[in-house]
């Protein structure tokens, strides 16, 4: 599950890497203040990390670039928010609703675009994202339009025998998000290690050969796109819970680009890469935007520098070095 899925040296490191990652995540609320952070920043990183990992399921492990994945993230945000706002105050139901809305939309769009490849695939995903963006923006009555959807809050978790306060307790909410994150990431890892996941890797490595082997490429890409949309809309639902708020920028192109850069920054060929990328990007962006009005320039610079000088990402470089 460490992401070194095909190379034997990876399996050697698998358990120590897993232990390290989970240790860092479990203890996050305790160490993050020492580096100038705060708990809800940790939660944010976790949510965006899950989003980036979901996207990387497609980019890194199927070899298909979606540049419009904010659409399914954003639908997750709205699905969760709308349920909490209009239907029921149950946090888990909100998450499920978000997952269904984003996931099913992804399934539908995926069916239309699986024949396209490379840059053209990316372009079509961007265009579809715009449809969802405009719906959220224009449907004032339902979504609150530009101002966003307000008037809902995450509800405490009722476990039957006890209630967990995640409304006011930042720590409890962090661990709730970590719990959901763990389930999603666990399933993602299992899928990637399954025969289906191996087939995706085969498509990534050489689509033509995979086709000669009788693999139905379109169906596999569609399924991968669908799964990825389901995963990322879970992250979207968590995002709605984190902010108690949903707005159209959560399904805008800029976020799609940011999610892709998180993947690349951490390393697209490494399972945990996007999580590290998300952490770095969130912290950097946060820092830059409070120090200069011209933050956009420097954020753009991050993109350019990563592409020009660190195309393998941080973990990608590390791994290469350790294998050399």
């Amino acid at each position, binding site marked *: 599950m460490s992401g070194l899925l095909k190379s034997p040296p990876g399996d050697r490191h698998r358990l120590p890497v897993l232990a390290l990652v989970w240790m860092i995540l479990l203890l996050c609320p305790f160490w993050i203040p020492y580096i100038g952070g705060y708990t809800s920043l940790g939660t944010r990183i976790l949510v965006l990390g899950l989003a980036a990992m979901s996207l990387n399921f497609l*980019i890194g492990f199927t070899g298909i*670039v979606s*540049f419009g994945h904010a659409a399914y993230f954003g639908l997750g945000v709205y699905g969760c928010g709308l349920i909490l706002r209009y239907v029921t105050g149950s946090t888990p139901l909100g998450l499920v609703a978000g997952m269904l809305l984003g996931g099913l939309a992804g399934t539908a769009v995926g069916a*239309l*675009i699986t*024949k*396209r*490849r*490379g*840059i*053209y695939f*990316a*372009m*079509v995903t*961007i*265009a*579809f994202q*715009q*449809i969802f963006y*405009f*719906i959220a923006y*224009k449907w004032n009555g339902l979504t609150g339009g530009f101002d966003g959807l307000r008037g809902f809050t995450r509800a405490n978790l009722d476990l039957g025998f006890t209630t967990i306060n995640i409304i006011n307790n930042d720590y409890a909410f962090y661990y709730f998000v970590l719990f959901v994150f763990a389930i999603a990431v666990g399933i993602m890892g299992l899928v990637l290690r399954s025969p289906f996941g191996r087939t995706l890797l085969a498509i990534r490595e050489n689509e033509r050969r995979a086709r000669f082997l009788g693999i139905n490429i379109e169906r596999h890409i569609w399924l991968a796109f669908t799964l990825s949309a389901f995963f990322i809309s879970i992250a979207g639902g968590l995002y709605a819970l984190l902010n108690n708020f949903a707005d159209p920028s959560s399904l805008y*192109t800029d976020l799609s*680009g940011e999610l*892709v*850069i998180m993947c*690349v920054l951490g390393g*697209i060929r490494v399972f945990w890469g996007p999580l590290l990328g998300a952490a770095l990007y969130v912290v950097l962006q946060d820092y830059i935007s409070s120090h200069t009005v*011209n*933050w*956009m*320039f420097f*954020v*753009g*610079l*991050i*993109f*350019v520098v*990563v*592409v*020009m000088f660190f*195309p393998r990402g941080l973990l990608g470089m590390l791994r290469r070095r350790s294998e050399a």
Partner: protein
Amino acid sequence: MLQLVLFNLFNGLIIGAFYVLVSLGLSMILNLSNVINFAHGNFLALGGYLAYVLIPYIGFWPSLLVAPLLTGVVGYLIEITMISRIYGRDPIYSLLLTFGLAFMLQDATRYIWGVNGLPLTVPDNLSAPLSQTYFFLNAYRLFLVGIVIVAVLGLFAFLRYSRMGMRIRAGILDLDTVSALGINVRRLRSLNFAFGIFLAGLAGVLAGGQIGLNPNMGDSLLLPSFVAIIVGGMGSLVGTLLGGLTIGVAAALTAVVWPAASDVVVYVIMAIVLLVRPRGFLGEEGMQ
């Protein structure tokens, strides 16, 4: 009602003309370099601002040509220093690179020329309304359509009859063969990129004359122009031309009956085209 429809039809053609200029440039770059240029809208703004700087010195008419040329030069420099280095890599890198460049260019524009919009002064004889009944037909808007027609005809003539144009067309069909014939593909791509940016710069000057300049002025044109390319068919410039006009007119006509949907209709058309005719109006089979 008929009058309203006619008004909007013409209005749609004007908006479509902008989509055409922007998407033709995007399409040229996409076809030969396999790069989606996210920064295209920012080059457009740059063209407008450069004209703003030039007009006091050389006047409007020369600026109409010089500002886009300078924009093309800036594009050329960016291509040879950055974009050309990632050809052949996974498309993800070109997407991210131009995405980042878009941020940087936009902010640089804002830093240099300020957050407030600036006016771009056009000659008086262009800005007068022609008639009170057909008030939307002012001289500048007719002029704008004229320039776009000239630019498009010029572009197609260039691609058809000039040596370089023929090489570009050949390169779109089969880059390897063109390269094997001893043509410097790298240079071809750089010049082609500069050409695409030139068109963006031209659109910027024209748009600036119509609605003034601001650092975000190209943003709203970029994504619909993607749609123009998809709808028209990847790989076909004539298709892009038709695509641009189609969505411009469709958006304007939708604005008559259902204003709130006029932004979405562009994308709905795209979804329908993808369902019914996935390769677009004139797209080559397999070029998708």
